[in-house]
């Protein structure tokens, strides 16, 4: 693992990709509970990562 701030930008981009992919998964799931509910849980954790990683990435950019 590396806590080098120069990695923040790359991590932020990955977090954005995960978010987009989960939204895509949700849309393809067509509302079926197994996709809908698990996608919601992933997005909650993505939100935490945005707070902890994407926010400092924006500020230090």
């Amino acid at each position, binding site marked *: *693992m*590396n*806590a080098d*701030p120069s990695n*923040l930008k790359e991590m932020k981009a990955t977090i954005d990709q995960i978010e987009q992919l989960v939204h895509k998964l949700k849309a393809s799931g067509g509302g079926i509970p197994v996709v809908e509910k698990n996608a*919601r*849980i992933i*997005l*909650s*954790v993505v*939100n*935490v990562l945005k*707070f*902890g*990683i994407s*926010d*400092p990435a*924006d*500020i*230090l950019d």
Partner: protein
Amino acid sequence: MSDRNKAYWNPFLETLPREKLIQIELKNFRKYLQYAKENCAYYRDRYKDIDPQEIRSLEDVRKLPLIDKKDLRLAQEGKGPGLFGEILGVHQDEVTDFRQTSGTTGRPVYVAESYESWQWRVEVWCHLLWMAGFREHDRVFVPFGYNVYVAFWEGHYAAEKLGCMVVPGGALDTKGRINKMTEVKATGLLNTPTYGLHLAETASQMGIVPADIGIERMLCAGEPLPQATRQRLEQIWGAEVYDHIGGTEPCAWAGMCQARKGLHIMEPFFLVEVLDMETLSREVDEGELGVAVVTPLGRHSFPLIRFNTNDIVRRGADGCSCGRTSMMISEVAGRADDLCKIRGVLFTPVAVEELLRREFPEIGEFEMTVECKGITDEITLKVESCEEMSNDVMAELSARLSERLKIKTNLRFNIDCVDTGVLERYTLKSKRFKDLRKTK
């Protein structure tokens, strides 16, 4: 990853220069306010003339109105939708957890958590536990049934997220809990200070030395933890004992690092202001006491903008040997609700606890009552010694205690030494101070 970075749960956030932390907090404050205006009936009217984008500095933040527990009660009493009234920030169907305040000062406030808001709270607690040295190898015992009270739920799920083994100890009596802690070889404990002392007393009665159980660290919640009580717990348990401060409504907003010299504000999760007690309009200077006003910047289900916690804290110096850059609280002096005037003197019960724990190790349990007798207020302090004492020793203790209390509080106490085991033992929060003047 270097050892230094392993000291942090999030090295990026925890070591950011202060001006960058404030930049993030202001950015998130604007977003949070916008969200609250758009999604929460309470703020829609209250903030209708305020443009979040115009908030550019901490001075701008201080111009906004405060909210307190009374406002939350009013926003809920008889007002829809559902249980949470006008303060709900998400659709009712998105609420996944119901919590409530303990109701010590009035009708309990119901607190709504969506799954997203709950994960945000758990993340705050991950910071708190990591900062206190909890790691994946720890076996964390929680000696309570958590019911609708939030702190130990947060601790449970955060410890689980860290990778600890969590052992919930509800539905056991105190002896059963001690046996279970011994059986699972618990290394960590989430506790109230009162119950930490009670557990130790019960273990001793069972012939078990508390320090032999193997607890290495304890994080306290639920009540004020004066420095002397913290040190007493450390000595009895042979463990590192950590304090934090928070509440059901805003979440835990400051905690201790392993230096154990004050509390770090959990920036940038919270924008915390420490305001002068008289006007609540001026940020106090380093070393000064003030009231903590907290805005949790990521909880959408229960938006709080500038929540007056009523916690009285002393603002600490910037910087800490641990390398974290967050603002420090050097002392939690008590609750504004507990401050009262007795014979014209401002009094806080925490001052008595601090004195007893620091200077009178022979005293175990205690209880204070203040009542109006004739035209004057009288305070009685009942104390229970840890061991049997002769009448002479008790008389000497009583005289010494009375003198020290007079110096410390400027008040005269009636001291009543009672037999060991007479005073009530508390299993969660203690109620050692009773102001009987209020009930008449």
